[in-house]
């Protein structure tokens, strides 16, 4: 396998749309030809060589080509879009649409990505070592086909709307997931190893969701059915199986109705609303001594902004408060 190395020279003024950074496009091209490929910023068209240095050599076919993207590409969209084979490795953070409409090959991002990574993915492997934002492996706007195959692994946390309209493939989330996981799912598997916030499997028709860290608040339209022992990652675990979404249409197979399934680790205690409720982290609070110190500090600051105060608290006390909490704190202390 031959490797092409792109190193970012300048950070773009706005955001760069670089859908040509893909083994399929680079394959069989000389470095000069690769540098001449277009990238877009707003209504302007530039060349890859305006923003990147091109080193190494591309393979004859996509499968023999590996692209390494180095430098700051946190303002570059569409890396590895529609790739079908080969490898792409992004050493830092990337922006939106990483591996969107991907059909094969392997894409590794060492940092974090923004939204829409791996949307409408059909195959291949997308690994994100940091966090990812919203709409990971979801459908494009208006489409009813989300992720249809392949595998997405996010080692950190993900935002909302992950895997909406998923009907195949696997999404493996190492951290926590925000609301609306697998909405409108018609198949596929999602594993959340952290805490799922809520609205898991809303309007789900078919598919499996494993929540190893529990769900903060289950949908009222899911019913508990039975406990089952299932092997996951080579370990046998007991899972509570929930069927749903009861508000949605469901097909029949061999006379039995096929529901979407949520698997919760059975060790979780039964919650109030018939659902397994887990408190996430306790709301962070300041001690009285810290409050006093903050009050004197606030007097010194002329116009304390929420952002500044929040940073100050994080720095001195090591507590990360929510902006809303901070703004209330400022109000109460300034009175």
């Amino acid at each position: 396998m031959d490797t092409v190395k792109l190193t970012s020279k300048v950070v773009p003024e706005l955001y760069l749309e670089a859908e040509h950074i893909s083994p399929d496009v680079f394959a069989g091209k000389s470095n000069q030809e690769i540098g001449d490929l277009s990238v877009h910023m707003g209504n302007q068209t530039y060349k890859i060589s305006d923003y990147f240095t091109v080193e190494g050599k591309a393979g004859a076919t996509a499968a023999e080509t590996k692209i390494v993207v180095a430098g700051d590409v946190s303002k570059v969209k569409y890396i590895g879009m529609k790739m079908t084979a080969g490898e792409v490795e992004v050493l830092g953070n990337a922006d939106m649409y990483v591996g969107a409409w991907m059909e094969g090959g392997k894409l590794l991002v060492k940092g974090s990505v923004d939204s829409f990574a791996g949307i409408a993915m059909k195959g291949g492997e997308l690994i994100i070592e940091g966090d990812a934002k919203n709409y990971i492996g979801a459908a494009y706007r208006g489409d009813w086909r989300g992720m249809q195959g392949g595998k997405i692994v996010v080692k950190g946390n993900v935002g909302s709307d992950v895997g909406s309209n998923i009907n195949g493939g696997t999404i493996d989330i190492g951290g926590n997931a925000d609301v609306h996981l697998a909405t409108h799912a018609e198949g596929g598997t999602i594993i959340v190893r952290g805490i799922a916030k809520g609205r898991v499997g809303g309007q789900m028709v078919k598919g499996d969701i494993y929540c190893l860290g529990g769900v903060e608040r289950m949908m009222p339209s899911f019913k508990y059915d039975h406990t089952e022992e299932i092997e996951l990652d080579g370990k046998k675990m007991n899972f509570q199986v929930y069927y749903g979404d009861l508000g949605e249409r469901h097909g029949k197979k061999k006379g039995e109705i096929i529901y979407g399934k949520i698997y919760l680790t059975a060790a979780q205690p039964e919650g109030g609303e018939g659902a397994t409720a887990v408190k996430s982290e306790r709301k962070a609070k300041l001690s009285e001594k810290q409050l006093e110190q903050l009050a004197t500090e606030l007097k010194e600051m002329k116009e304390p902004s929420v952002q500044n105060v929040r940073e100050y608290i994080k720095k001195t006390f090591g507590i990360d408060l929510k902006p809303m909490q901070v703004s209330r704190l400022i109000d109460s202390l300034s009175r």
Partner: protein
Amino acid sequence: MSKTITDVVCPFCGTLCDDLIVTTDDEGKKILGVDNACAIGAEKFIHSSDHSHRVTRPRKMQEDGSFKEITYEEAIEHTAKILVNAKKPLMYGWSSTSCEADSVGHEIAELCGGIVDNTAAVCHGTTLIAVQNVGIPSCTLGEVKNRADRIIFWGCNPAHAHPRHMSRYSIFPRGYFTGKGAKQRKIIVVDPRPTDTTNLADIHLQVEQGYDYELLQALRAAIRGEPLAGDVIAGVPKETVYEAVDVLKSGRFGVIFFGMGVTQSLGKDHNIDAAICLTKDLNDYTKFSIVAMRGHYNVTGSGQVLGWQYGFPYSVDLSRGFARYNPGETGSIEVLKRQEADAIFVLGSDPGAHFPMRCVKEISRLPSVAIDPHITPTTEICDVHVPVAFVGVEVGGNCYRMDNVPIEARKVVEPPEGMMTDQQFLSAVLERVKELKAN
């Protein structure tokens, strides 16, 4: 003596009342009185005819923050240059003007390679996403008046936001099949707080703030006769949910009206998605429709014009010469927050008052133009403010009601002398943009 103009269309909210009677003086310059309108609508007419407080010529912000009067020609030149020089201009607003003006504006955006977005981005845009996902079984307000006997108000408060909606269409009017008016109708209001609308409700589902989606899905499950988990569903007792379902199923014709309470709370498009699916499910038992309570009088029209020109109703990115649409990437809030745009053009909206502070700061940082008859927080932070005539008061134009019915707004008085309309100003800018692009 005075002149009376009948059947005037009110350019305030999406209800677009078309039965106003406006009295003007003989020369047709001053409005003396407005009949039939709600307090807000009447105030809009009276206010616009009082020229003493209005800015009548474009103003340019000086270095010290004060404004200096400039001519319309200078304003046109400035606007055209900003748009032509930008790599990705954001053209936002379009909701408080006529469809004709919108159309000219979109032509400019296409030439300059910009983003066109209307106020749906912070309002009912999520509705449009949901409609794209699952379709919409809708009807006109006339049908509601004549047929509906089950009304749901979900996350909206028409008593204050659309004051004449309830008396003209939804609760009180006696229609062809609804001869007994309010007595014949059952009203369900879903709102986390008691409001003036909930006072009129037969059933008030006091949903827990931010859990509309759970309640909607629970209602859908209850309609299918499925069991619900827990005794309290999203703050509403289980019995009340089943009671509400019985009321809905027993009607002859029902309508769901929904507002910003669901479109902009947690879940956004998913809430509407579920509400539309609820409507679809109820159609297995009786006839049901769903209508969005749109805010600005012509926000629907802006979506319609964008729809027939580019295929997408809002947040249309034309920067690469073809239309792309993906709220979350091309929406105004995201674009400003991520600093993706390098110029901003605002027409017929007030983002300065409604956008998050980070976005407002971004507007003040970028080269900007605001076109608005009023002095607003937006005009105060933009480089150039261009005052224009009021559409629906000083100039006519086509507008769309919240149920997608086009209504031609009428001119009742003359604008202040020498003042341009939206359409005239935009046409002049378009002409200048074409000249600049040709060079």
